[in-house]
């Protein structure tokens, strides 16, 4: 890692869930170990991608990092503070440092609330003053995520999927977080909209300087946004490293299997298309 302290350190995280119905007449319910001794670090201005297939435990790790659920054992340290056992006012402070953007904006945004109510909710919930008033604050945030600020009175149903996801991102930004956790935040979007949201997430990070934990099953998306990658399977991190290391020189067998399974557009076709486009652009100029 770097010589400076990382923003977030997770040590030996374990999460077990009881599995109802697994017990029989003579057996108790088993516990299922969804996360099995995961340790990782997220540096300042860094994007750590957690990748893996369904059931790998990546979302459970993210939820523990955001303290949406408590770990069975292990610690999470944010900015030098152990947040694993925070409560009361200190937990409130932590909540404004870490924000989550979920996969489906329509289920994570209250359909009865306007954009203004949605975006200012985290501040009101924490009893904080809204700088410059709710209206001006909302409009400014909407502009930053590329939404028309005159739409601040609209409700989620009046937006397309990509626009609604921008509202979700605006809400995450409202409290000026240090860490934004994106849980499959671009997975449900059409490819052209997905590219726009990826560009937006990257430019916001450049401007605001926060870090991302980016959870995704789509490795091609991860390649576009991550600085480091942690590969998870069956509750464990099997490989962690810089993005290009992991993609270009995967060390673990599972990472290799995962990378090999991804459908690819024939690189020769791709190269030919780029070549023809360049030739066309040159001829035009």
């Amino acid at each position, binding site marked *: 890692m770097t010589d400076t302290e990382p923003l977030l350190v997770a040590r030996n995280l374990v999460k077990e869930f009881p599995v109802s119905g697994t017990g029989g007449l003579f057996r108790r319910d088993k516990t299922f170990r969804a996360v099995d001794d995961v340790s990782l670090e997220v540096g300042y201005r860094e994007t750590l991608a957690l990748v893996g*297939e*369904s059931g790998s435990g990546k979302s459970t790790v993210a939820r523990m990092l955001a303290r949406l659920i408590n770990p069975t054992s292990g610690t999470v340290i944010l900015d030098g503070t152990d947040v694993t056992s925070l409560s009361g006012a200190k937990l409130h402070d932590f909540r404004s440092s870490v924000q989550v953007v979920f996969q489906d904006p329509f289920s994570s945004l209250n359909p009865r609330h306007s954009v203004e109510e949605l975006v200012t909710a985290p501040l009101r919930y924490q009893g904080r003053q809204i700088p410059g008033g709710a209206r001006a604050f909302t409009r400014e945030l909407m502009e930053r995520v*590329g*939404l*028309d600020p005159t739409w601040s009175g*609209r409700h989620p149903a*009046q*937006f*397309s*999927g*990509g*626009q609604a996801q*921008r509202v979700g991102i605006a809400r995450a930004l409202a409290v000026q977080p240090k860490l934004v956790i994106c849980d499959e935040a671009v997975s449900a979007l*059409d*490819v*052209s*909209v*997905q*590219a*726009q949201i*990826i*560009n937006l997430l990257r430019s916001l990070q450049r401007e605001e300087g926060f870090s991302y934990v980016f959870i995704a*099953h*789509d*490795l*091609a*998306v991860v*390649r*576009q946004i991550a600085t480091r990658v942690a590969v998870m399977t069956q509750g464990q991190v099997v490989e962690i490293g810089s*993005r290009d290391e992991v*993609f270009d020189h995967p060390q673990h067998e599972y990472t290799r*299997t*995962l*990378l*090999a*399974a*991804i*459908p*690819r*557009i*024939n*690189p*020769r*076709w*791709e190269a*030919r*298309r780029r070549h*023809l*486009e360049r030739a066309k652009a040159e001829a035009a100029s």
Partner: protein
Amino acid sequence: MTNSQRDQTLDQPADRPMLSVRDLTVAFPTAKATNEVVHHLSFDLPPGGALGIVGESGSGKSMTSLAIMNLLPPGATRSGSIVFRDTELTALREPAMRTVRGSRIAMIFQDPLSCLNPYYTVGDQIAEAYRAHRHGVSRRQAHRVAIESMERVHIRDAARRVNYYPHQFSGGMRQRVMIAMALSMEPELIIADEPTTALDVTVQAQILGLLTEIRENTGAGLILITHDLAVVSETTDQIIVMRHGDLVESGPVEQIFSEPRADYTRMLLDAVPRIDDAIDDMRTLPSSAAHETPTEGARL
């Protein structure tokens, strides 16, 4: 369908398309206006060919497949011509269409769980579908067909697992069960609508490989509908790109990917995230989401 009929259809000249769609229009008429979701779409599928229909949400790709199967939602109308092996499907009444559907054209959907009845074993469901299309087949024979078709999609230990309920299978295995159900009928054409979208990438690779294997072994045609350009590029040989119900561009797969003619296709290809390298600023469609109207956004 009897064997002699099947032989006749196989005797057709190779250049005659197996499916020919002309001027297909799907619309939802309302009191105020008619909302067309597919406009005058025409395409051909050669015998044993594999056609990919790609587009973003609202492009009309799924409506096209539902129109072929006459499974459009209530309130939708279709016009134009759909000729499948010399049969004009749009002229068929429901009972005749029902014999085509399932037994000659099979359809595989994205979500196998919603297509399987949780109260019956998968074997019973495959057998029941088979007997619905093959009169005079005994339960015992149908049960054997169920096991055989599960073996054909590489479900190990099929003789035992034929008695499993859907919830006892993983998502990928359920999709195999759906494909097994489709295969039991020995269809001439398989229409798969986002068959791997809900699946993990390693399972997706297996299912796509399976579809290709089936095509090679049985000579069935395939229409693969997906939003995923990389998936069609590996699985099909002809491509149709759709947007807002219109055909944007069509052609052989290599041509679409190396020499796209339409701006929209080019931009779609540019927007696909690359696994092999990182691009600093991904190019996107000019109609930036920022100021598009919500209805436009919903169509995109």
